[in-house]
């Protein structure tokens, strides 16, 4: 970053409306967090013996990991599959991914009964028959990978040329490692539900659920990149390197990919219903909810992407991206909460406690604030002048 930009950063006023609101949310989150650790999970959550997993697992972990999939999606496309024109989107996607996984770990720490024992599976006693063991291992390694992938931006900002060169030389290896880890844990998050055919509603349960989770994670990654890049271009109009026209053309390209991925996803969902012959269930209340998810958040944005791509309408594409992201959130919440324990009577079902919602909102706010802080200082949305074209 240039000198003038650095001084501009210092001079920026602190009490902007954004900072005040974000600060209040973060303060509330910290307060609830302290309360949760002081008194335990019972007073601060609606979790119970029938519903031991709530919003913190369903949203912060399940959804967070899916929405952070942009990092591996874009970096693989650019570095492994040669789609070089998407290079300007790699760094924001990696940063979003890193912050997303960081949020996942924070959410997990709040939710665990004894979070200080988190390293136990690796240092005390391993339980390798558990899908969760694989996820814990992959997420830990991938968080590290994303951090290393992010460091070149920090090193450029700090002016540490040697370190930057070292990490830069590992780009391909890091990208391959990230893609391996992501394929594994994104699908294994779905595999966590393979063992629960009786507790997860049959429309969402499938022997293929790991594949459903992986494909929808790719969709989530692409849609998040479309959404996040549009937002950054608006917020950081002075920092972005590529023109709006260039971003529009990249957005249109991403829309094509997202449209195809949504088509694949729709197809494998139909295959799952067909294989288990669950068509009759579509005419039950849960079936209507399922159709709402599929028609409203898979078919609709797929059509939106297709039209947006054909007629080159970036705004329509961005709207479709937002709908898709909401759909991924809905899907993960359906699997982990709404369609889970579906046999239980309504009074024994789970609904998040306001404190749970506060912590989740605070975590998302934290990620947004961190992105804003880093992107406002480090060469994330633009190339560092000293390393132009060096990718």
């Amino acid at each position, binding site marked *: 970053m240039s000198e003038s930009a650095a001084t501009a950063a210092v001079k920026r006023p602190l009490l902007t409306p954004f900072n005040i609101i974000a600060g209040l949310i973060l303060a509330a989150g910290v307060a609830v967090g302290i309360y949760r*650790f002081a008194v335990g999970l019972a007073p601060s959550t609606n979790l119970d*013996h029938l519903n*031991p997993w709530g919003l913190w697992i369903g949203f912060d972990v399940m959804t967070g990991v899916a929405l952070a999939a942009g990092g591996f999606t874009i970096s693989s496309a650019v570095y492994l599959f040669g789609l070089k024109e998407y290079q300007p989107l790699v760094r924001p996607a990696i940063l979003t991914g890193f912050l997303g996984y960081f949020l996942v770990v924070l959410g997990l720490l709040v939710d665990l009964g*004894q*979070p200080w024992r988190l390293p136990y599976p690796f240092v005390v006693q*391993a*339980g390798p028959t558990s899908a969760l063991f694989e996820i814990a291992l992959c997420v830990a390694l991938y968080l590290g990978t994303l951090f290393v992938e992010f460091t070149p931006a920090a090193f450029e900002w700090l002016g540490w040329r040697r370190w930057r060169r070292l990490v830069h030389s590992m780009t*391909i290896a890091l990208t*391959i490692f990230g893609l391996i880890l992501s394929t594994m844990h994104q699908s294994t998050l779905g595999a966590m539900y393979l063992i629960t055919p009786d507790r997860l509603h049959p429309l969402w349960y499938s022997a293929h659920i790991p594949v459903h989770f992986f494909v929808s994670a790719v969709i989530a990654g692409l849609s998040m990149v479309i959404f996040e890049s549009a937002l950054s271009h608006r917020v950081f109009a002075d920092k972005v390197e590529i023109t709006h026209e260039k971003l529009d053309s990249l957005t249109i390209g991403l829309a094509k990919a997202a449209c195809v991925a949504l088509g694949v996803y729709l197809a494998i969902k139909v295959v799952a219903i067909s294989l288990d012959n669950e068509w009759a269930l579509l005419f039950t209340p849960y079936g209507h909810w399922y159709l709402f998810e599929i028609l409203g958040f898979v078919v609709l944005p797929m059509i939106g992407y297709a039209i947006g791509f054909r007629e080159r309408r970036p705004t329509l594409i961005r709207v479709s991206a937002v709908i898709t992201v909401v759909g991924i959130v809905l899907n993960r919440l359906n699997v982990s909460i709404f369609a889970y324990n579906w046999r239980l009577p309504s009074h024994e079902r789970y609904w998040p406690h306001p404190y749970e919602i506060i912590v989740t909102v605070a975590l998302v706010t934290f990620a947004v604030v961190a992105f804003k802080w880093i992107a406002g200082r480090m060469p994330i949305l633009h190339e560092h002048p000293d390393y132009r074209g060096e990718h």
Partner: protein
Amino acid sequence: MSISRRGFLGGTGVVAGVAAGSATARAGGGMDRFMGYPDAMGLLHDTTLCVGCRSCEVACAKVNGKPKPAGPLHDKSIFGKMRRVTDKLYTVVNRYVKARGNKPAVYRKHQCMHCQEPCCASVCFVKAFTKTPEGPVLYDPSVCVGCRYCVNVCPYYALGYEYENAFNPTVQRCTMCYERIKKGDQPGCAEACPMGAIVYGKREDLLRLARQRIAKFPDRYVDQIFGEHEYGGTSWLTLAGVSFDKLGLPVNASHKPLPELTSGFLSVVPLVITIYPGLLLGFYAWTKRKERLADQAREAAAAEARAAAEEAGAAKAAHQKKLAESRQKKAVDLAVKKALAQADREREAAKAAAAEEETP
């Protein structure tokens, strides 16, 4: 230990430093079915004998140092609401069918079923659960991280968690009175039951006893021993006079142990680690090659264009030369012609002049 078959990385030896080969993988294919430990103990609950006195609840609370169960025992109004197993209530008796005419009410005692191949043990990422050869599934609180995956997947909703404990919360559930049965005593509930509705013994013997009862009183029992095969079987066996779905049990439960549903997927996962690097490097090489070929093609095309341009230039020069030559020739010819014509004219003029001179 039965559930360790085909875990993630188990038996493959990959990433040895992390997994430390802790999965004592059974036969490589892992297809052999675990039929339960021989001589393992179990309990048989005959719901046709249960009168809902809840003596078992009281005994259980006493043995495990838990608070006394709610309400006086003679107060049947407690059955108006379905109660669940919690961290303070390891076992709970519920009324599933109300008394009607001369048909008595149907009660069932619920608690951890002590599965032959337990989900809780399979999903635990610190391997806190062990199926003991004696029958009980035991839990080691000293390694528990508190993720509650076990509580979340139990098909019988039979695990409780200490949500009120802020600093050392653990999973709480029936232990089949492991300490007591090791000493040769009966579990608390079986000892307390005044109706003989809970029988403790070797699981094999209990299965025989249950079959005998069904054979002897076919009108009294449905022809199913819940727990013989359901989800791979359980140490608790249940007999009933009504369909088990009326008693809150998954009557059509598959006979396959639930952990098998995950182990198949997890056994594929190491393939990602082994196949992806080669595959992706292949893709990378392919992309690079395509780029290189495109560069080469571009260069070749440029060279060709250059050559063509040069050739075209030469041809043009030659043509121009020819053109110039022909133009020159034409000019020369013209000049010669002109000169000749001039000469002719001059000769004509001279001739005419001479003729004029001669004529006068």
